[in-house]
């Protein structure tokens, strides 16, 4: 899905296509106008970018459009056990629409139970990070213990509204990606690039079918996207983010077709 300022749609579409999906890059306007219907799809991907220029706050305006104008369709999509992934700006949108940490409810009084806020560094930064994989999520099935993919954002610090939200995330296995040092130990800046609470980089909803993450798995889809692939000798064609997309497509093939 895209709108003004979405800009990682082409490479995200490429990743899904290579993984065996048929992909349409749908402009929000097409959904509003009813020319395209959400129900005709199995996976909703919200790619990275700067929807509406990050004006007011990153993802906010897109989030309101999803929540207010398309809320019923989104709720149906989720209850139909379909998949959603939000990467970077997409993650910001999912959190600000209340779809993550979830569960999402149309017309709910409390909209947001967490946020993604300004990096502690105060800067947009593009750098590679090590992620510990955990939790229970369709998208992270059979991933290795840790993966190496890049972040590129200025507002990626995950903050839950209170302790009980954080406790629920832990209890439900909703924390699926955490920043770590290369050796797997507790990171500081820049290994945790934004100061995220408990080093959280990505979370899922209680069903494990909705994934949101700040780092970009589609930017380590090919082995030559690795920042020092020239040191690593012969490697498989695909990079450490590729499995995420494959998992999504495999789930649909197995459960929804």
């Amino acid at each position, binding site marked *: 899905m895209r709108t003004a300022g979405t800009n*990682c749609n082409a*490479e995200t579409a490429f990743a899904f296509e290579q993984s065996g999906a048929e992909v349409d890059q749908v402009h929000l306007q097409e959904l509003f106008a009813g020319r395209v219907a959400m129900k005709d799809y199995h996976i909703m991907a919200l790619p990275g970018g700067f929807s*509406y220029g990050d004006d007011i706050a990153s993802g906010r305006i897109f989030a309101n459009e999803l929540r207010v104008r398309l809320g019923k369709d989104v709720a149906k999509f989720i209850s139909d056990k379909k998949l959603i992934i939000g990467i970077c700006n997409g993650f910001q949108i999912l959190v600000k629409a209340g779809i993550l940490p979830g569960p999402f409810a149309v017309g709910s009084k409390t909209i947001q139970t967490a946020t993604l806020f300004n990096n502690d560094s105060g800067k947009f930064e593009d750098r590679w990070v090590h992620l510990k994989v955990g939790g229970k999520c369709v998208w992270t099935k059979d991933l290795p213990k840790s993966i190496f993919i890049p972040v590129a954002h200025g507002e990626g610090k995950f903050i839950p509204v209170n302790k009980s939200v954080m406790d629920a995330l832990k209890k439900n296995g909703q924390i699926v990606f955490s920043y770590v040092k290369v050796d797997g130990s507790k990171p500081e800046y820049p290994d945790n690039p934004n100061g995220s609470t408990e080093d959280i980089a990505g979370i899922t909803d209680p069903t494990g079918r909705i994934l949101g993450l700040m780092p970009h798995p589609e930017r380590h889809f090919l082995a030559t996207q690795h920042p020092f692939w020239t040191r690593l000798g012969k490697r498989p064609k695909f990079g450490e983010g590729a499995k995420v997309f494959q998992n999504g497509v495999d789930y649909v093939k197995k459960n929804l077709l």
Partner: protein
Amino acid sequence: MIWRIEIKEKPGVFDSVGAGVRHDILDLGISSVKDVRAVQVFLLEGDIDRKGAERICRELLVDLVVQDYTLSDRPAKAAARKGMSEVEIAYNPGVMDPVEASTLKGIHDLGISGVTAVRTARKYIIEGALSPKELEVIKEKALMNKIVQHSVKRPEDSFKSMLVGAKEPALNTPEPLKVKMLGLSDKALVELSKKGQLYLNLNEMKVIQKHFAGLKREPTDIELETLAQTWSEHCNHKTFRGNIAYTVSEGKKSTTEVIQNLLKQTIVKATNTLNKSWCVSVFHDNAGIIKFDEKFNVCFKVETHNHPSALEPFGGSNTGVGGVIRDILGTGLGAKPICNTDIFCFARPDYAFDKLPVGALHPKRVLKGVVSGVRDYGNKMGIPTVNGAICFDDRYVGNPLVFCGTVGIIPKKMEHKKVKKDDLIVVCGGRTGRDGIHGATFSSGDLTHESEVVSSGAVQIGNPIEEKKVLDVLLKARDEGLYSAITDCGAGGLSSAVGEMGAELGARVDLELVPLKYQGLKYHEIWISESQERMVMSVPPKNLERFKQIFAAENVDFAVIGTFPGTGRLELFYNGVRMADLSMHFMHEGTPRITKTAVWSAPKHKMPDFKCPADLTPKLMEVLADFNVCSKEAVIRRYDHEVQGGSVIKPMVGPACDGPSDASVLRPRLGTDKGIAVSNGINPRLGALDPYWMAASAVDEAIRQIIAVGGNLSQVALLDNFCWGNPDKPDRLGGLVRAAKGCHDFAVAYGTPFISGKDSFYNEYNDQGKSIAIPGTILISAIGIMNDVTKSVTMDLKKAGGLLYVVGSTYDEWGGSVYLASHGFIGGQVPVVRSREALAVYHSLSKATAKGLVASAHDCSEGGLAVAVAEMAFAGGLGAAFLAKSVPYEGHSDRDDMVLFSESNSRFVVEVSPENKKAFERTMKDVPCKLVGQVLADEAVFYYGLKDNLCLKADIGVLKAAWQKPLKF
């Protein structure tokens, strides 16, 4: 009804904006500030009750997880506490803040109607004892730029000034203003040109006078404006296309030649001589186009945006990036941008505040602002910024240089455009306002005053999301073949865009049809406004319906403003009244040739007279920490260099992702292994010795970076960008001629044609009567086609035991080197280029990398071999032993520092794994290439001198720290 909303971070939530401002204040040397809190302010005007306003706050404007807000229908009370200052900064009327439009949209999405206007501001609460003067300094130097912003004097003012804005009544239909020109004396013509800010010289004014005398009428104001714009240096390149009498003096001898059209005689001539079949479109379009693969071509353009960046660094570089992206969108039938490259020249960031020329911004502020502007536009457009360079020299203090480049990809057969008779003129994207109206001021005294006040010069803040929308919709319309030609609206606005498109067929425009940002623009302002994010297309009438559908689906505005009627004339109307009627032929061909004088004599510099230090370690540390050599990571990380997924060799390489890469490599089409390498060559210091060799060295540097990453010379194209002082001064022009000749000679020698270029003159700063000219600066950008990006090579050392070679000869060429500068000298032999030897080196090394024999390679530039080896070592996290005695050396010195720090061109340091030794040496047998050392597991470098003396020894961690320190911010 007006609502004021103030939003700030909850206690305990990190206020990054406030913290950033506090840091900037410390940079100003004011240490008494303990804390800064930033408060976002929104003002909503319209018919809306508290309940509605509360909902807007809670669901749109405020992040309730981390922020608190206040909502009020009356002015905020200023904090009266001692030791606490409040400053509120708002945009000047007429300056666009995209947040306002987005907020209106967001309110509409919530289903709330009644809000008619939104304004934004930011309030800073500063804690710490400050004198009124210090507070003023903070405001002007850290919080705002007067060109686009102001400080709100009293809280209640924000309720008035911010909402009134620039609302003026719509203009009544006027008669065109006739300018009295016929019969004017020479003196009066010069006066008219000056008063009207036409920047036309007497010769040109006389040609125009004669033209209208022939028509037996006076010109109208808008006609004169159109001619001034079309004939301007910026659009017409008068210096480069004119005649130059060029004199070279050597001692008592001097020779003079007359060069007719310097551009044709140098840059274009090289391309014509080479006549490469893979050049698809050169010089005449917005960007040069070369072949890429069976389905696509690529195009490349680099522009400058110097003057705006000097006044407003963020806005200047921001719109510079936006402008060059539009150049790519307007190339052929429209190309898709795939990467950006940005190169800057600044004064040193540690420039003394009290020595700044009056009116100049401090270079550190310029640097930060320019980087932020590039970051904002490039990142938001989703175009990776993959490569760049930053040069520092104090002569850039008044005129920083900002080069913005973009590469695009375009399907085959879309490289040509042709306007058809009776096509509609369509303008799309951003609306037109009073942005950048400079020359439009001659017609009346009032207008002069008003234009200057309201337009605030050439400076605007761009709106990258608007341009992203335009990009998305244009590529769709292009692929459906809905328009026959397209061009960007850049310098000169519609006047330039429509004037160019209609050069053959003529154009008729109804100016009242142009969508405006606000009422009240005069007809000629509409015509020459340089508002951002606009494109102009010619659309066959039958396609208009489909065109409308596509644009509506993507929410992009457009308007039909006229036609191309086939009359060969430019006819402008406003509400049916004819305002201009000009012959296109006269507009485009009527410019008189000018002749300028250029002289050149070799400058004299004091020759170095210091002894070679026995231990060169401290000098290496000093050279690594030179602003021109040090790490630019703090800048690079601010740019998204990976969006679109095509990145193969990133700007930072090595296991810690912090080594300085040479050219960047990317794959424009995901799923194929064909790629491009992009690089830049620039070294303004060499111009002080000889601009000819400066240009030659820049060509060489750009090319050798491509070779270093595994490219080859079979398909490399170049761009030239000349930034010079006043070309009416013969010495400045002499340097320019030499540089242009250098460009020609080495483009031909290397078989690398120029495909596009640009020039920027008058880069001089008047400091109380004294002119500070920039050093004449040439930037050469290169793009090379890589057949297989999976064979690319990076510069970080790979493995202990690897063999180190130096490829290419070192000469006694340390003139202009960073090393000599560290001793306080410029003089000495300038590095020359020996193209025959270099070609052999490049061909051999390309063969070796293609065979997979090269583990790492790094080009030698500033700091010579000493810096190249050190960078490779600390980038790879490995040590190195290096023997200067073994270097292929063609000099006569016995100095270790000469061999280690000479900046001879066409050289590389290469790592080869021991099992490839024989094959590598066989491949390199015909060129200067010697085994000079080895990669060590120890994390230290050891350099041995010409007598096997240990002349340099350092831990790589220490070297890296020295290299990383200067530009951390």
